[in-house]
């Protein structure tokens, strides 16, 4: 029987994954693996995956067959920064959730982006803290009921991709999990055309257990709904305020190819100490 293209990048002995049935994390994994496949990457020996705490942080650890560091809650980006600086030859990819990367690790995210650190960060925005039973996260929609917002979320969600686009990051995109092909192509771009500096891809993928099922929908129904709800940013910009609230703006927010932190650091050192 034919084998799924993703399996060669996975530790087969630990499958199936520990995610809930229908969890969109697995779809991101497909997109990631298809991007690897289309880039002709045979194995992930030269890749290091770094993640923090949360469901999406389990994608690399232990499932992806590569070196992986499953770190403390919120600290994936600093660890990844250390790995990349210590061995710039490695491709370092951070995979994490919105709670991990934008809340407890928010400062690190901002500063790695400000430095244009040579990392690819994939943030799965599932709108809640899925691993700890769906409490409100910085990305939880206004008014949503969760265990920590029993009367409705009084806070408004943060637009992480726009925030990161406002830093020195090279590449910023947001895709919905229902936009498989553009998501996959975006990952490909972030590994090939834009292979240096800070690259940030936000993946909008509501938690199937604590968001989707709470809405009374199945993962498949929600996926089809998202296909309509998620629109290109160009279209979104021309919408009225009420219309905007009902949609998710997706697309490439920023795509530059400036030298990343490591190149810049080395340039200054070489200038000061003289090239060897």
């Amino acid at each position, binding site marked *: 029987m034919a084998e799924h293209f993703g399996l060669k990048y996975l530790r087969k002995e630990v499958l199936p994954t520990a995610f809930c049935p229908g969890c969109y994390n697995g779809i991101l994994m497909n997109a990631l693996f298809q991007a690897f496949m289309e880039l002709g990457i045979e194995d992930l020996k030269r890749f290091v995956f770094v993640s923090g705490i949360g469901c999406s942080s389990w994608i690399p*650890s*232990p499932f992806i067959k590569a*070196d992986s560091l499953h*770190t403390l809650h919120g600290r994936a980006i600093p*660890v990844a*920064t*250390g790995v990349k600086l210590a061995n710039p030859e490695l491709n370092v990819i951070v995979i994490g959730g919105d709670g991990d990367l934008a809340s407890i690790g928010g400062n690190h995210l901002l500063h790695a982006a400000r430095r244009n650190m040579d990392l690819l960060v994939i943030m799965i925005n599932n709108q809640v803290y899925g691993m700890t039973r769906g409490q409100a996260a910085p990305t939880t929609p206004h008014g949503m009921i969760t265990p920590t917002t029993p009367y409705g979320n009084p806070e408004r969600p943060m637009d992480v991709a726009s925030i990161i686009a406002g830093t020195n990051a090279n590449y910023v995109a947001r895709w919905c999990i229902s936009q498989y092909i553009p998501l996959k192509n975006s990952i490909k771009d972030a590994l090939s055309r834009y292979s240096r500096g800070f690259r940030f891809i936000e993946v909008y993928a509501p938690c199937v257990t604590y968001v989707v099922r709470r809405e009374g929908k199945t993962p498949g129904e929600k996926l089809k709904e998202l296909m309509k709800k998620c629109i290109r940013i160009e279209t979104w910009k021309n919408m009225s305020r009420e219309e905007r609230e009902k949609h998710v703006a997706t697309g490439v927010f920023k795509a530059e190819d400036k030298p990343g932190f490591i190149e810049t650091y080395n340039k200054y050192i070489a200038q000061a100490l003289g090239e060897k």
Partner: protein
Amino acid sequence: MTERLFLSGNEAIVYGAIDAGCRFYAGYPITPSSEIMHLMAKELPRVGGVFIQAEDELAAINMIIGASWAGLKSMTATSGPGFSLMQEGIGYAVMTETPLVIVDVMRAGPATGQATKSAQGDLMQARWGRHGDQYLVVIAPMTPQEAYDLIIEAFNIAEAYRVPVVFLMDEFIGHGREIVVRRGADKLVVRRKPSDHEPPFGSKDPRIPPPMPRLGEGHYVLVTGSTHNEWGYRDVHGFETHYKLVTRLKEKIWDNIDKIFKYKVYGDPDARRIIVCFGSTCRPAIDAAERVGGTKVLRLITLWPLNYDKLAEELSGAGKVVVPELNLGQLVYDVAQVYPRSKIRVINKVGGGIPIYPSEIIKVLEA
């Protein structure tokens, strides 16, 4: 090549670390440790190393963890408040067996306290600052020369036992300048890489730390702060896995205590009056012992793991035991474990960065 320099303890640490092979530094400015960072920023690129100023201490400790796994000897330096922020990261390093050196140049706390004033209040935090059962190594120098020599030792211990080493130094030593002979390292411990089928997180003999794979070399290593088996796979439910892991992490340090634990005796080795001390307070203690005679100074270099048997042996014939500390009494608890508390005389001084003077020690010795 031997070089005679006039350096502060903070500066001596930088040269010692570089001579020990340290090639990665991440840190966040904090008094009174900042000079370490300044000099590292300047010197590391000259030897092909990497320096980065982190956005906070949480980032700093985690960056050096990443760099250590990527194969570089790594360190950071901080002081009280920053050391508190680093605790979680240090715990992760203990759990994942990541060699690191963390310098804590102690200032007066708690909280912001007195940023420029020397103190010895972080002893207990260095040992026990993290949650869960965890064991690391704590070393304290007493002069800038020792800051140089012992930081090399700290790197060697970190690499040999795959453990974070806390280098506990008082501000007096950090900012005090003295002659430092940059003599280079006698021996450097080289990190052991795994051969085929050798697990990176387990060994049959708990005294032998497992080998450490380097990222990017095809080991497909799984590093996690969760309870894991010898191959790094998470097992957050199993009693056996957790028990095996945390006891091994303890045993690899405590069962090697003969190799790790170091102390030194000054003054009259047979005297019944004994001063027990660490760090900067040792020098006035040795001075006092020399002035009045008939006194032995027991100076702890390794503060953790502490060899209580050795301590008991050294104190076995003691009459009066004096414990001078620049805190409200922390080392005294160790002494009290092996010697009756009622016979221990303490000298505690906190605040304002005033050292304990020999005259004060003599007064207690002769009282």
